[in-house]
């Protein structure tokens, strides 16, 4: 049974009292996820944030293991982050983005304990969009709509928000500010779409010249992979405190950068820019279906928004085979 929440501010206030709440906050010209100090910092007027909330589940740099020597022997202690947090105001596409991260880190034979620990301690409160952004492609993949992956889902309506509960954790947050309702409204704004037939046949266009011509523009700045909510590659490295202690840590890596596939003698498997760009596009849109049974792209358009030279993989895919 859904609820009606009339006073969002009041709800945020109670949340902030008890949790670390992370929500989109206005910077000069854009929104970014930040820890809220007061409910007044939150305004519902964002289409989406420039960068996704992924850094709260997979930080840019993270210590994994602590090595310390005692009696001449090292021991390795995993450093799990168990801080309870609320991600507030997450857009439906980003809920899908987190679902992709879950698939990468939590499925298969091995569960990534560090991600798992952060994820388990994160409550997700999603809010549906009233309008789509200029580069939103959620229509293509239906990611404007979420059915799971949230603890609470809010739909903005004239007199407040229709709230749906997605988990027991979410249920616990329901308090006297919520009143039961049987209204079942959703907000699903229209956005751009891919050409479905191109997407389905991407394999055929692997050698299309378009990859080369488009990649000429690429600055190899990695902005696209950093802005992508489903780019989760990382590099592991050991850092030294002193000869007896140190950390094994990981840091974001990007397939757009040179050292991603570089091995002995300076040999780089994926050296050419067009191969890197192509790898990004195919991984997000095509190969991931075989890997995880889903498309890694959630259509948020961030790679387009952030690319300083306006490379647009959606547009490229739409144009494949046409020149």
């Amino acid at each position, binding site marked *: 049974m859904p609820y009606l929440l009339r006073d969002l501010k009041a709800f945020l206030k109670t949340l902030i009292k008890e949790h670390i709440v992370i929500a989109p906050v206005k910077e000069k010209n854009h929104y970014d996820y930040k820890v809220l100090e007061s409910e007044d910092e939150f305004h519902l007027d964002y289409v989406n944030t420039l960068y996704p909330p992924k850094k709260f589940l997979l930080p840019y740099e993270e210590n994994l293991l602590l090595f310390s020597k005692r009696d001449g022997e090292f021991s390795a202690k995993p450093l799990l982050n168990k801080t309870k947090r609320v991600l507030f105001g997450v857009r439906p596409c980003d809920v899908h983005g987190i679902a992709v991260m879950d698939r990468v880190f939590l499925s298969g034979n091995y569960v990534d304990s560090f991600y798992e620990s952060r994820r388990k301690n994160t409550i997700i409160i999603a809010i549906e969009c009233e309008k789509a952004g200029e580069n939103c492609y959620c229509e293509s993949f239906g990611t404007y709509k979420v059915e799971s992956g949230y603890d609470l889902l809010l739909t903005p309506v004239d007199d407040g928000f229709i709230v749906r509960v997605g988990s027991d954790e979410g249920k616990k947050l329901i308090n006297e500010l919520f009143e039961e309702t049987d209204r079942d409204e959703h907000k699903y704004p229209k956005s751009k779409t891919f050409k479905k037939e191109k997407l389905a046949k991407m394999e055929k266009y692997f050698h299309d010249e378009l990859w080369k011509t488009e990649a000429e523009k690429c600055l190899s700045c990695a902005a696209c992979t950093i802005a992508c909510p489903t780019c989760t590659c990382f590099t592991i490295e050991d850092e030294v405190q002193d*000869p007896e202690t140190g950390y094994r840590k990981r840091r974001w890596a990007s397939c757009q950068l040179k050292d991603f596939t570089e091995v002995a003698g300076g040999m780089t498997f994926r050296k050419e820019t067009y191969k890197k760009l192509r790898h990004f596009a195919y991984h997000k849109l095509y190969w991931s279906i075989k890997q995880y049974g889903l498309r890694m792209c959630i259509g948020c358009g961030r790679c387009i928004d952030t690319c300083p030279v306006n490379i647009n993989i959606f547009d490229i895919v739409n144009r494949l085979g046409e020149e």
Partner: protein
Amino acid sequence: MKRLKLAVFSLTSCDGCQVVLLQAFKQLLQLERYIEISHFPLLKDKNKRGPFDISIVEGSVVNKRDIKKIKQIRKKSKILIALGTCATHGGVQAVKNFMPQDKVVHAVYPPGFIKDATEVSGIGRHVKVDYEIWGCPPVAEDIVKLLKKLMVGQKPKNINEEPVCVECRALGHECLLEKGILCLGPITHKGCNAICISAGRGCYGCRGFLNEGNVKQLLKKLTEMGYSIGQIEDILSVYMSNSKKVKRVIEYGENY
């Protein structure tokens, strides 16, 4: 564990890198048990002559005396670290390479006064360098981190061989290029934590040219944004005049 002998040398520079070493003074003292500072003229009267396990060299090569000196240092050092953009790329003074020599010199000294000046370059032009720490000035933590790694026998890779954009984006900044502000982030080594962008201005390349950098496209982007080739050249030449790709831009301008 054997204590490593550390030396700090300076060629021609502003000495800012040594100021950075002073920022790390506390951490260096904490490493006393493992690393002995045996040569550091800025701080010490009694400086050993070597050999050294690790030598940190800051400053660029500007004359024959510097060349001789860096060769001597290399001979007596097991590991040689080039510290700061002067030592890695030549620093701001390398702009001189791209100007009529007479004009530059005579702006300061009368003809014939300076005799042994050579092309300005980083030390890597003359000797093999084991590690480079970029930055004008470099970041104190980078030095300490590297020393700690070397101390336990790591042969670390340089993790900063990536563009400034990586850190800039990870910090959540909006790209300045989108706002029409000139920024050399895409072709500059990261590691500064994008402090210029955090300080509200574009990167001016003080950490040196990133070899993978696509100068040609950045140039195109900047001209589309309304900057003239001359303006872009000016800013490129300050820190990047010693890299081949940028040299071509400076030499050929629009016809690049």
